[in-house]
């Protein structure tokens, strides 16, 4: 499949070229090729994450415990998306591929996440090089909410080990919208 892969500095800005939502409809169900992150599942990032959520689970801090219980070090399941997200800079200026939910062309300028359901089939093991494929599961018609006018974008992503073992299946719904300007920051 070919599609416009033009990436601007604002790709992570969730800004989109103004397109008709009919263009976006044609993306539904089309599976991406696999994405890879820049680093394998690793203990350094794991412990930084545990510090950010103050999780003292010995699974992540006690190597002997992890070996005895899990057969080795594993990552917190909440870090699913981290392992296939690329660094913001790499030597040679390699381009980041934003997730499908934000690449989908819609007349919007920002987004807020609404829901996430993830099923875990196996752990993310330290050393695993994880790949992800995804597709647009659903795209709502234009909706007005308290934060602005936009679209609910649902993506279904599968995360796999190098040998193809399915580790996690994620369904995420993101509300992409045109911001109305300063609000009270109230919820959707």
């Amino acid at each position, binding site marked *: 499949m070919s599609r416009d892969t033009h990436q601007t500095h604002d790709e992570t800005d969730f800004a989109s070229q103004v397109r008709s939502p009919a263009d976006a409809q044609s993306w539904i169900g089309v599976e991406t090729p696999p994405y890879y992150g820049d680093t394998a599942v690793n203990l350094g990032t794991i412990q930084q994450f545990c510090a950010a959520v103050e999780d*003292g689970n010995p699974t992540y801090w006690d190597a002997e415990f992890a070996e005895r219980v899990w057969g080795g070090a594993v990552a917190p399941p909440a870090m699913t998306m*981290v392992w296939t997200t690329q660094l913001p800079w790499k030597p040679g200026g390699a381009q980041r591929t934003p997730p499908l939910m*934000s690449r989908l062309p819609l007349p919007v300028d920002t987004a807020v996440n609404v*829901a996430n359901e993830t*099923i875990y089939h196996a752990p993310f093991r330290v050393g695993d090089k994880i790949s992800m494929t995804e597709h647009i599961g659903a795209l709502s018609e234009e909706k007005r909410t308290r934060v602005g006018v936009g679209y609910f974008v649902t993506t279904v992503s599968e995360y796999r080990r190098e040998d193809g073992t399915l580790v996690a299946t994620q369904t995420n719904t993101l509300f992409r919208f045109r911001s109305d300007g300063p609000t009270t*920051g109230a919820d959707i």
Partner: protein
Amino acid sequence: MQSHGYLQRDWTDIVEGAALPEIRDTMSFTRVASALSATLDYFPVHHDPNYARDKGHPNVLLSTIQIMGLVDRAVTDWTGPESFIRRRSVRLSAPIYPDDQVRIFGHVLAKHLEWRGSSGHFVDFAVTIEKADAVRCCDAEVTIELPVEGSANGWRLL
């Protein structure tokens, strides 16, 4: 059952309706910032206050990944570190901003011996995150699996 000095709760002892210990946490700006390199979630609304305000927020807001980590921790702090999270569903409403004081609470919804065609020891939880004035930030459901009592080597990476 004690595990290496950590309390591991046994499936047979878990009762429907049992409450998770409430967690009260103040999400300082530093806590929000500390998640940036650990999540690689560089969407500017999570680290750039100017961007966040330009889009209608009073400040940067916690990422989904960090919220999911808090939910998981609230469950496994109680169930014990030999628990494997099988499913987590979160619905996000009010954003969590720096200096918000959050309250994370929950309870056992159900326990069962089968989940998606697999047999084992499973427990379902409801977990809620609220901030000041009982404003709802997150409604979650978590299903964890516990090792079956008496199995020789625990999980061994399933």
